[in-house]
């Protein structure tokens, strides 16, 4: 595939919480229209890395970030409009946080925040995003009930719909399928493959097979270091460049 344009450039990114450094200098690019998989054991810094991208790491008072992140060529630390940056990046957190609003209002939240008020427009965004998140059929008759009253897996899909609602250029999914059954997961995976034509997707997952199914390239992150980053075929092949990668994806890793 052609890797013409860079959606995200990360140069020597370091992150510490207090004095503990958890990301030790990462440098890599993410290309437009690729699904970029990130795998790695617990605590390797996957979630923290995503939080650097949309600068929600700023809410963590103990966190200090150094290095450069460019999204669409512009440095996110210099951005004048942090809200526009956050709308450009859709974020799905591992534990779904339904806002205490109705299902409809949850999905319409971001478009409304950016100033969209026309009901017809909002209606169509809500419907499309809920369909993409494979939730529409289950909730279309109760759009105005509380989003927090949905089941765990439904709430997770609601956060996916919400992350799509502001038409992000980049979609970050952090272990999106932990609460979702396999059949629905497959449906969402199909949507992701479809979405890839329009946007860039970063997929953090503990299910290495999910990365194998979806990702164009995969990065193996371990304790804040990039062990290996290559096309998914190579990462999951019999001989990736680093033997640790082989051990991890084959579950031999101690």
């Amino acid at each position: 595939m052609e890797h013409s344009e860079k959606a995200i450039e990360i140069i020597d990114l370091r992150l510490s919480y207090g004095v503990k450094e958890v990301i030790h200098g990462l440098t890599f690019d993410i290309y437009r229209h690729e699904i970029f998989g990130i795998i790695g054991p617990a605590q390797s810094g996957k979630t923290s890395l995503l939080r650097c991208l949309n600068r929600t790491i700023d809410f963590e008072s103990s966190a200090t970030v150094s290095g450069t992140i460019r999204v669409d060529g512009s440095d996110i630390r210099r951005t004048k409009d942090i809200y526009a940056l956050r709308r450009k990046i859709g974020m799905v957190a591992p534990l779904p946080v339904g806002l205490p609003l109705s299902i409809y209002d949850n999905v319409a939240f971001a478009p409304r925040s950016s100033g969209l008020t026309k009901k017809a427009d909002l209606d169509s965004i809500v419907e499309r995003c809920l369909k993409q998140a494979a939730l529409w059929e289950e909730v279309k008759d109760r759009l105005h009930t509380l989003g927090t009253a949905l089941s765990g897996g439904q709430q997770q899909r609601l956060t996916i719909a919400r992350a799509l609602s502001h038409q992000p250029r980049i979609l970050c999914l952090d272990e999106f399928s932990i609460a979702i059954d396999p059949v629905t997961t497959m449906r969402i995976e199909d949507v992701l493959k479809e979405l890839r034509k329009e946007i860039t997707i970063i997929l953090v997952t503990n299910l290495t097979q999910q990365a194998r199914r979806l990702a164009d390239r995969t990065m193996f992150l371990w304790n804040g270091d990039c062990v290996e980053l290559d096309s998914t075929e190579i990462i999951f092949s019999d001989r990736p460049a680093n033997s640790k990668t082989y051990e991890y994806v084959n579950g031999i890793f101690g």
Partner: protein
Amino acid sequence: MNDMSESDRLPTLPKRSVVSMAGEKLLEFIIRLSGISAIVFVLAIFFFIFREAAPIFFSENFNLVKFLFNAEWYPTSVTNVRYGTLALTVGSISVTLLAMSIAVPFGLGSAVYISEFCSPRLKEALKIIIELLAAIPSVVWGFIGLTVMSRTIISLTGAPVGVNLLNGGLILALMSVPIIVSIAEDALKAVPDSYREAALALGATNWQVVYRVLLPSAKNGLLAAVLLGIGRSVGETMAVLMATGHAVQIPHGLLDSVRTLTANIAAELGEASASSDHYHVLFLTGVLLFILTFAVNLTADFVIRGIRRK
């Protein structure tokens, strides 16, 4: 490997003793009792006030309609005693409304500022100052009303007297703001941070987070804050006694003096000889006050439920 050795086995969990189960029952009983006692106390207070009011309430020449809707309060007139409380009720309500129309926006506004926008150090300072404000005794507030506020009102408006509805309303507003702020701030603090983060991650501004997420999810606590403010205003006695001018009349403007139900009871109960009609009527105004606050709380309760159902 051989079978699990003795030391590997998990310890067996002990059965719960009879004593601990009985203790739990006892604790449950005590807690239930204290819960119910709240109801008992409220009923008892109502009962004892009403008992003092009963002789006049059930007497032949007492007219409930006149009591409620007549504005003439002449309890000590020699020729024609009249017990109309309308002016007092209107006094209480108008002072409270004025106070709330100032205190609610200021109180909720500063609660939002303190909990969402200001720096941690300023936050600590503001909270301490607001607690100080809450600790000022009401007689001191009354004194401020009588002196500073009164003089200011006279010089700014040219009114003949400075102790009036405006003065009482301002003093009451100042007194209820600290309560509203601290309760409302607690309510906002109770909203999980994950909501804020989720909303901000969607590109909402701080201000959008406040009115789209925080206010709706803290609405019960915020309403409680407003209610406590109203309760404080309706129930306040000393400060309004000193600041409102204590004239029995239905006010036609902010600069008219008024008298409230509470101030009236405080001022007259000492003079009314026990078991006189006047004495019993004052207790009846106490019952009226009780019903008034009860009605406010009940309405608020229905409002909350209405919001919830939506």
